[in-house]
């Protein structure tokens, strides 16, 4: 009778939530490709895709269809198992992060409180970092298994870049975590719901985090693993069909997730600015939770737009410049930020007495 005492409602609720989150992040990643092309076009005084559907709204479907129709090529000299596993790993790590993100407040369904978060674990941000650092495996394995010198070099670049920038990213977050005093993402959001977003306390930390997020997502100006003028096509040179699509897709999912985390940590997450959310819950009920989700999405979409805006403005860094910026620029800056924050936090803790 152990099974009967199990909370089946919880399983169903989480299963629904997980499928919604996965489908939503895939659809958003799809439309990011469309958005990217549109933003690129508009910045370059063009119109961009506008033939498939109204304003090219069906373009991502056409792109996906094209990728599925392409011939699947696995090079003879490649390590076949790892070659297939590479894009899968990239996608898996990209999707796993979304488990701990609070997408909104909570819904009241049949007398139950359903939080809009898959798992509210108390080490949320640590989990995110653990999964994100696994993301380098997709790049590494794909690049190595292709048995191609260019891919291997691109993979090495990607790995060293991700590892170097993860350091600065972690350090910039330590300063933030000293202020929040918790690793749970939901608690961090709730602390900001008074309107005092963390960006006001940690502007420098935010800038470091943002730059590192660009590097982690392999976005311009840090897209050295895909530097096509130097490395042909980068680590996914040998890939074709939907395996290539998975790599490109994983990149966009990563971008979405990193924007969500940025919004959660620094911009109050699902908090609606200038509005008392708890009061809103009394008036609107479940609609307030949906409004919060929409608010989070608005913040995220703005973040994604900034990512794209930067991509189509800034040229690529040279490799030594990249390493200089990471190790000699961002890490000392993050350390200094951490020390200053620690001093101020300690002072505040002692009621401003030395």
């Amino acid at each position: 009778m152990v099974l009967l005492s199990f909370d089946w409602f919880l399983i169903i609720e989480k299963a629904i939530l997980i499928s919604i989150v996965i489908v939503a992040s895939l659809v958003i990643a799809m439309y990011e490709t469309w958005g990217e092309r549109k933003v690129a076009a508009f910045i370059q005084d063009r119109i961009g895709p506008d033939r498939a559907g109204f304003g090219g709204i069906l373009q991502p479907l056409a792109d996906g269809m094209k990728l599925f129709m392409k011939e699947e090529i696995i090079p003879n000299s490649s390590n076949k198992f790892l070659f297939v596993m590479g894009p899968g790993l990239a996608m898996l790590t990209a999707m796993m992060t979304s488990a701990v993100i609070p997408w909104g407040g909570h819904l009241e369904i049949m007398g139950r409180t359903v939080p809009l978060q898959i798992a509210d674990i108390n080490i949320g941000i640590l989990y995110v970092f653990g999964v994100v650092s696994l993301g380098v495996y997709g790049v590494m394995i794909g690049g190595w298994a292709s048995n191609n010198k260019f891919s291997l070099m691109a993979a090495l670049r990607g790995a060293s870049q991700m590892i170097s920038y993860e350091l600065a990213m972690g350090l910039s977050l330590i300063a933030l975590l000293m202020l929040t005093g918790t690793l749970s993402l939901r608690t961090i959001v709730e602390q900001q719901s008074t309107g005092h977003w963390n960006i006001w306390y940690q502007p420098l930390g935010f800038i470091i985090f943002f730059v590192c997020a660009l590097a982690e997502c392999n976005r311009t100006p840090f897209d050295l693993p895909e530097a096509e003028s130097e490395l042909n096509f980068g680590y996914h040179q040998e890939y074709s069909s939907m395996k290539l699509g998975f790599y490109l897709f994983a990149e966009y999912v990563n971008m979405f997730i990193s924007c969500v985390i940025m919004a959660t940590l620094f911009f109050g997450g699902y908090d609606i600015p200038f509005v008392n959310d708890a009061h809103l819950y009394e008036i609107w009920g479940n609609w307030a939770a949906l409004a919060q989700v929409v608010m989070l999405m608005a913040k995220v979409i703005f973040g994604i737009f900034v990512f794209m805006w930067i991509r189509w403005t800034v040229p690529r860094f040279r490799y030594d410049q990249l390493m200089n910026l990471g190790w000699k620029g961002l890490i000392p800056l993050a350390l200094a930020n951490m020390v200053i924050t620690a001093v101020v936090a300690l002072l505040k803790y002692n009621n401003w007495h030395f």
Partner: protein
Amino acid sequence: MQSLTNRVKPVDRKPMTFLEKIYLWEIAKGMMITIKHFFRRKPTIKYPEEKREFSSVFRGLHILNRDEQGRERCTACGLCAVACPAEAITMEAAERKKGEEHLYREEKYAARYEINMLRCIFCGLCEEACPKDAIYLSQTFTPSNLTRAQFIYKKDDLLIPDPNKDPELYAKALGDRKKPQ
């Protein structure tokens, strides 16, 4: 060193200032430029729906003309083929038989008349060379075909519709240029 022209711009080799070294300010300036372009009016012409305005002397695909009774004007004199710098035009002459007066204007006509549109440079010299006003360049452009062979336009492709039988198609093929005499 004295420069030969006064258009020389010396390379700026000053060391970067602090603002330039931290990149951020410069990147922000660059982003301001791109966002200005983001909201700028786009010069794109959406081709199949909108068409660019052409001048009345635009040189498009060729048309073999007919006179007002619908007879072919071309006499296969070969002046256009001689004038053609790309050697895109070939033709074969034939003599008009009795009873074909309603088809051909003069005693000699072109039995075969071909223009290779892949060779043609649309210079309009054939139009200038023609003494009978039989060939001119219309305002049709961007032909598309599946094979190279189909780009060799035969007489059927080039002849203008009969002004008496299909006046509408005739007017369309004529475009908005002045009517030939």
